[in-house]
């Protein structure tokens, strides 16, 4: 193995590891707090990418606004006072010809993902919280939700691939004669920052402490006056935002299509099982480990065999450590 190959493997391993970490930490957080497993998490990744694309790209919202803006600017003279008010709006619509850019697209996508997560929680999860066998019912309802969103997006946007603009443009970074794209570098750097922010939020903010309190013991959390239902909702929204971020990163690397969330979600399953559900440090270590294992086995064997190695590892881990490599005994 040449040093270039090693650098390339590490770089791509860190990129996939970062994406898995963003997804799996959300899954793990929800599992630890709400005790539910969200199979629609992959669909939220896809929603993040699509909403980012829709706002930022000229083929999205901007394209829809063009005829509307044209209509307003040409006819506003006949509309009196209303026309005077609407005219600048129409001009603004026309000026957005090239899309709104990622500066607008990314924050809007994040907000939208939070909203989508809230809707999923209210419709598919909240009605079952506290009922017997709820964790298994929620698997079914969230799978159905994921199917609904996937197919819905296909109806809305068609099967043609989309792509997000790259955030950083420019020549790739050279590390030991190996070229690493700037987008990849950005992902490798931004993910740990996000995860550290998440950690600070959980450890030092009042809401974060409440999330951890509910995760540890929801009855006692209720006793000290924490609104457990609100914390469940909040956790779910945080997790959805993390998924959305993963989608935005993924959308800048690969093509955006309705099923784009399925593959990373499967990897995230492997990760959470590997790292133990509900343990955030375990999940993050597991993500990077899985990313590196996957990329090196893709190099050593082939692209086809890498996932086989991965799933075989997962099955073996589950046989010998049924609660994950780092998962402790459940009380």
């Amino acid at each position, binding site marked *: 193995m040449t040093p270039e190959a090693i650098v390339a493997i590490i770089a791509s391993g860190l990129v996939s590891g970062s994406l898995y970490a963003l997804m799996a930490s959300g899954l793990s957080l929800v*599992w630890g707090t709400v005790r539910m*497993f969200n199979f629609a998490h992959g669909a939220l990744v896809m929603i993040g990418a699509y909403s980012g694309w829709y706002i930022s790209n000229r083929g999205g919202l901007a394209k829809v606004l063009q005829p509307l803006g044209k209509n307003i600017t040409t006819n506003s003279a006949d509309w009196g006072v209303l026309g005077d008010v609407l005219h600048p709006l129409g001009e603004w619509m026309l000026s957005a010809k090239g899309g709104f850019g990622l500066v607008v697209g990314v924050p809007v996508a994040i907000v939208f993902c939070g909203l989508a997560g809230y809707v999923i929680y209210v*419709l*598919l999860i909240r*009605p*079952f919280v506290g009922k017997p066998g709820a*964790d*298994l*019912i929620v*698997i*079914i*309802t969230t*799978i*159905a*939700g*994921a*199917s*609904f969103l*996937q*197919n*819905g997006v*296909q*109806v809305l946007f*068609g*099967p043609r691939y989309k792509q997000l603009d790259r955030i950083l443009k420019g020549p790739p970074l050279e590390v030991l004669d190996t070229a690493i794209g700037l987008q990849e570098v950005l992902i490798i750097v931004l993910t740990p920052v996000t995860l550290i922010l998440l950690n600070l939020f959980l450890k030092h903010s009042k809401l974060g402490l409440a999330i951890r309190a509910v995760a540890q013991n929801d009855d006692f959390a209720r006793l000290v006056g924490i609104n457990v239902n609100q914390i469940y909702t909040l956790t779910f929204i945080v997790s959805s935002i993390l998924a959305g971020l993963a989608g935005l990163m993924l959308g800048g690397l690969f093509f955006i299509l309705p*099923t784009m969330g*399925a593959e990373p979600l*499967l990897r995230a*399953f*492997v990760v*959470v*099982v590997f790292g133990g*559900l509900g343990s955030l440090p375990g999940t993050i270590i597991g993500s990077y480990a899985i990313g590196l294992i996957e990329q090196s086995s893709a190099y050593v064997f082939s692209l*086809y*065999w890498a*996932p*086989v190695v991965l*799933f*075989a590892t*997962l*099955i073996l881990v*589950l*046989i010998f450590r*049924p*609660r994950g490599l780092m998962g402790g005994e459940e009380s």
Partner: protein
Amino acid sequence: MISFIHANKKALAVVGIVVFLAIPLVVDNKLLIHLAILGMLYAVVASNWDLTLGYAGVFNFAHLAFFGIGAYTSGILTVKLGISPWLGIPCGAVAAAIASVIVSIPAIRLRGIYVALLTFACSQLVLLLLLSQPLITGGQQGLTGVPQLQIGDFRFRESKFAHFYLVGLLLLCSTVFLRRLVTSDFGLSLIALRDFEEYAIARGIPLARQRLLAFLLSSIFPGLAGGVYAHFLIVASPDIFGFSLAILLLSMVLVGGVATIYGPVLIGVVMTYVSELMASSAWMSEIFGVSRGPVRFMFVAVIIVLTMRFFPQGVWGLIKQYSARSRMTEPAEGEDRV
């Protein structure tokens, strides 16, 4: 009404069989017959899924893999080795049974969500293995040129009766087998393990053995159905392992009624009609344009969520509830054991 059914079981069975045999004589629409065959195959898979999902209470997401393994085994054996489909189909069932044992060995050690994750991973692993060997399995395009069923010079695809009767017989055997199984001591022990695990174990029911048997017994008929499916459509495609088919079959089990067997059989056929006719009907294409295929899966998803939310007992569960209420006023008789 239920007491009337109980009193005239045999007569009703005969009437049912005669009506069934007459269907292809009366119905002249090729599409409807095709969908009936497809629906009955799906009904076999869905009702067997009910054994692990409903009766054993095990979240087995590898069930469709058994169906797929049956299809691919029979397909590969007939295409690559040239053996007769009539031998290939039972081989598919054997392969599915072996796979079910392999999956169940780690699965019976796990609980709740981990079972779901493991079985999900197993079914994906099977798919990935199939895709990684395109020379044998045809890869992403699927295995084409699977021979059709024939007896002597009689080709099944040229007759509208042959597949219909064959699959009907398969569904009948599968349903009788499942109903006998779930009302037997074995079936009762599965229910006991599902509802009162600790007590059932204390009463001496071997948890691991019963669950392993549940996996094994639920894989045989889907394995057979998979083989018939491949020879009926003359292709074995990786779509079998896809998300969409899994959702469709899951909806059959849930809407039909978990732990009823009859429910998934009935709704299996109904859902196939509903979803396929949605995909081919003219008014749907007028509303949704060319992309009406996805719309039916959105519809199926909504149905699933509504079922889980408002009538988790499913259609057959509702029928049973209703009949139990009406039976209160009548003298008790021939009580169903489940």
